[in-house]
């Protein structure tokens, strides 16, 4: 499925300075019963966001009107645990297009890239600067440039680069799809398959 192109994003950000945010927090298992990719944003961080009677928990960032934007900034080891792509879907469906952290769990990072959410990994020091910038001014804007592979704190002009492999970068900036790529080398795959006895 082709997805939105990603080139440059300029936005305010929502801070979540917690480490080891696992995908069970991002979307609890009981919300994985859908058979279509729809509406997962409503249950993003469900149990941190709502009380058991479904009233919003006032101290959770997504319930603070002062924070908004298309960038989610999380603590170290973001997205650990379950492989559920629903976690990336929930992040996307809520409206985020980029997650910034100082470290991502592998599967979550891959899932994000596969649906057009950019996981931008920065140093722990730079992550702290981003949190500080939001703390100082919740309306502070950030620029995430995939073309330049760079995150900039616009208020101070400080920036840092992030890694992404060339193939994925190309896909994201053009909205290309992995499966189309593979279907184009189908002949090669079939040939390989016949050489495998298993």
């Amino acid at each position, binding site marked *: *499925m082709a997805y939105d192109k990603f080139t440059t994003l300029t936005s305010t950000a929502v801070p979540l300075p917690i480490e080891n945010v696992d995908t069970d927090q991002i979307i*609890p298992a009981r919300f994985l*019963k859908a058979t279509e990719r729809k509406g997962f944003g409503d249950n993003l961080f469900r149990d941190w966001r709502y009380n058991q009677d479904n009233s919003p928990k006032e101290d959770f960032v997504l319930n603070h009107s002062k924070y908004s934007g298309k960038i989610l900034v999380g603590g170290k*080891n973001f997205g*650990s645990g*379950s492989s559920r792509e629903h976690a990336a879907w929930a992040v996307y469906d809520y409206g985020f297009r980029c997650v910034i952290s100082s470290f991502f769990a592998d599967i979550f990072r891959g899932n994000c890239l596969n649906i057009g959410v950019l996981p931008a990994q920065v140093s722990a020091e730079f992550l702290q600067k981003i949190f500080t910038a939001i703390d100082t001014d919740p309306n502070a804007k950030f620029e995430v440039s995939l073309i330049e592979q760079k995150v900039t704190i616009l208020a101070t002009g400080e920036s840092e680069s992030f890694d992404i*492999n060339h*193939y994925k970068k190309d896909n994201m900036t053009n909205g290309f799809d992995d499966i189309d790529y593979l279907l184009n080398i189908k002949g090669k795959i079939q040939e390989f398959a016949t050489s495998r006895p298993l």
Partner: protein
Amino acid sequence: MSATKTLFDKVWDSHVVHQIENGPDVLFIDRHMVHEVTSPVAFLGLKNRGIRVMHPEKTFATADHNTPTINQHLPVADPLSANQLKMLEENANEYGISYWGLGHEKNGIVHVVGPEYGITLPGATIVCGDSHTSTHGAFGAIAFGIGTSEVEMVLATQCIMQPKPKRMRINITGELQYGVTPKDVALFIISQLTTSGATGYFVEYAGDVFKNMTMEGRMTVCNLSIEMGARGGMIAPDETTFHYIKGREFTPKGEAWDKAMDYWQTLYTDPDAIFDKKLTFDGSLIEPMITYGTNPGMGMGIKNDIPTADMVQGGASTYKKSLQYMKFDEGDSMIGKPIDFVFLGSCTNGRIEDFRAFASIVKGRKKADNVTAWLVPGSHKVESAIKEEGILDILTDAGFELREPGCSACLAMNDDKVPPGKLAVSTSNRNFEGRQGPGSRTLLASPLVAAAAAVTGKVTDPRELMHEIVAG
């Protein structure tokens, strides 16, 4: 290219169909396991593209994540769950994939049935939309969990795009103490590495402890590789492996077996092969483990006290938040804490050896009145063995009931949810906030620790009860 290779390199390199410049490898997948929760959107994707499953004969579907563990003969009550199961069945039929649904004699947790029927083989590449796919690495396979977009990719092309992970070897020497199980070994390793210590790596487990471990034990250890962030974990196949797989339904037979054996016997790490990281631990120092926090890395020897925030690496505020959720204090002892639930099951510890271990402790004792116990076999095959070996009688005499197979309280998608605030000793793999139900509090441990808790109603060192048996 150098002639010396790690086990991981041998298997990986032999599956590379295509290399994308400055990008991931295109890896051929020998076995694709599918379940009801992470597949519907992938099948929908195929439909939208108007394409078929490329290799239905390499694809196997089972229903497990979202199934009830009682009254499986009745229609599934929850309409959303019922719909997911129906979709899987329809998709399997539509695309000619073998499907072991609810009530099927081969039904069970995807990572339990794969090995049971010989779908899991050494040197194979195996993926599934579930992170604990790493289980199958116990056979010397490269096995890892994938997301739904990747499920669609494998259905459509039998390949996956993956950057090649780095190589780590974890060597555990010596002999395990009495009462220390493979689960303890795994929880120990994770406590040493933390939940992100192996991110970006594929792990090979080596050393005497793994050499002497049964296949089921190896599966438990490889299963938990993901909990330290690793892409997967694997163990070189040996006589124990070959003995386990021989004669199973989907394993090669006759000449094909001999040919496969020739290949499998080359699957080991060459003596001077290079790892990006190597770690060694002394297995004799490992104690029965228990977790006290909200990630699997927060574990310790069962008799230790909960570390204080200044003793742990990483953020003190995250650590304190975690203990606050668990309603524990820094410095607390875990021994003696009253518990409410016990869960024996999951793809980590839902196999016959786990039930044997559990039964060895509860035999001749009674379930504590304050404890609700869910004993959930990993598959129908495990369930049958429990009955045939007389374990069911031991469990029944001790006041326990056996449920029907499935993932159950491992992820609490069905009705098996630990209520808010309640404390559970679980043999599964994750103690995240709310993993076993909103507000639930989970202590991860081995089947022996779970059994000791089930009969005493509190956290208990199982060795105390084992000595009694030995003495008696």
